[in-house]
């Protein structure tokens, strides 16, 4: 059987983030408005495989997805050691802005899910003029810890098994099993302590608090979409966020915490109208 080639191009590139050399992997497809997509904690850019193959989106958008340092095919930075990784708000912002500057993208749209859905709020507060629009998937302003995340990285528990088990439950029972399995598999492939290190941002350092009131939707349009089965960033929490910003949120039926990866077909029904609004 002949191979059905996808329109995606993979790239490696070297650049500095906060003065430290990094080797980063990214994928892209399409032409037009740059749409930079941010994956969830402990996973990688493969979560956006459906977007990178969606003909309708690729006609108008240059979809670009990078693996965060330590994730997917991106290398850890120089002089790294296992067990020391902790994502801070500052370093997360730096890697996104360095990547955008490094590719010389002008006023991109940035869409992020989970930790990505949180960081777009920080981008909206600090750099609204830099973006054409910001899209938050599974966005919540803060998250109180509800399970002991030390289980995600200890030598007597297989990290891939436990991270996969956590991710599996965050998906909707109605999402297709194949896509759920692939989404879980990405988690099973994460490096030791990386999911836990990302959650430092999600559950502690990246909590927004009252700063959320600084977001001015007139400076940069914000769209918030959340799956109904997400118990990490619940629709109620996104609604509270949307109410504070003064926008409407979109509640997505039949999806959970990873809409673009666990049920792309359902997710794209919600995303297409959003992307059509952005000019």
């Amino acid at each position, binding site marked *: 059987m002949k191979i059905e080639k996808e329109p995606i191009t993979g790239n490696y590139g070297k650049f500095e983030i906060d003065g430290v050399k990094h080797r980063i992997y990214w994928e892209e497809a399409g032409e037009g408005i740059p749409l930079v997509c941010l994956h969830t904690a402990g996973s990688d850019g493969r979560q956006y495989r459906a977007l990178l193959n969606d003909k309708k989106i690729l006609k108008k958008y240059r979809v670009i997805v990078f693996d965060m340092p330590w994730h997917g095919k991106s290398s850890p930075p120089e002089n790294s050691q296992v067990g020391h990784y902790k994502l801070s708000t500052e370093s997360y912002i730096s890697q996104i802005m360095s990547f955008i500057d490094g590719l010389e993208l002008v006023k991109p749209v940035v869409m992020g899910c989970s930790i990505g859905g949180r960081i777009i709020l920080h981008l909206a507060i600090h750099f609204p003029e830099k973006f054409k629009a910001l899209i938050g998937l599974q966005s919540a302003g803060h998250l109180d810890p509800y*399970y002991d995340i030390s289980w995600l990285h200890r030598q*007597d528990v297989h990290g891939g*098994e*436990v991270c996969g*088990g956590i991710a599996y*439950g965050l998906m909707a*029972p109605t999402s297709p099993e194949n896509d759920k399995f692939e989404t879980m598999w990405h988690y099973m492939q994460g490096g030791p302590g990386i999911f836990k290190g990302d959650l430092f941002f999600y559950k502690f350092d990246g909590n927004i608090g009252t700063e959320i009131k600084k977001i001015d939707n007139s400076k940069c349009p914000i769209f918030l979409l959340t799956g109904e089965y997400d118990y990490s960033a619940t629709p109620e929490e996104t609604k509270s966020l949307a109410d504070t910003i003064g926008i409407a949120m979109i509640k997505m039926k039949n999806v959970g915490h990873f809409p673009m990866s666990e049920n792309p077909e359902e997710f794209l029904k919600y995303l297409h109208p959003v992307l059509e609004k952005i000019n």
Partner: protein
Amino acid sequence: MFKSLIEKNERRSQLSIMGQYLNTCFMISTVDDEYLISIEKGNVTNVEEGPFVMPSYIFKLTASKNEWLKFLQSTPQPGSHDIIAMLRRKVLKFEGDLHPLMSHLLYFKLLLASLRPAESNNEN
């Protein structure tokens, strides 16, 4: 309510692979009723229904009967579809030595989900 866990071993061949090194005994409580479940090499070998005088187990999962019934729906509602979701809503309590549970988290999620009606049985 959980007695049929032992009857479904034949349908859970994947789970016996995922739990091939798992030997434990845990309790499920509905507050009014208790079930002591023994697992050997990933297979449920015994389910004993209480009341118990001096039950011995490694860890215990407690939720009300109503919450367990919601979890066991063929297509559970958001917040009832996963044991961590129930933990988040503070309707389920984990107690004891959680190592067997957390080191086999997906195994236990799928084991409990195997009690749902067959059409939504999410076994891998």
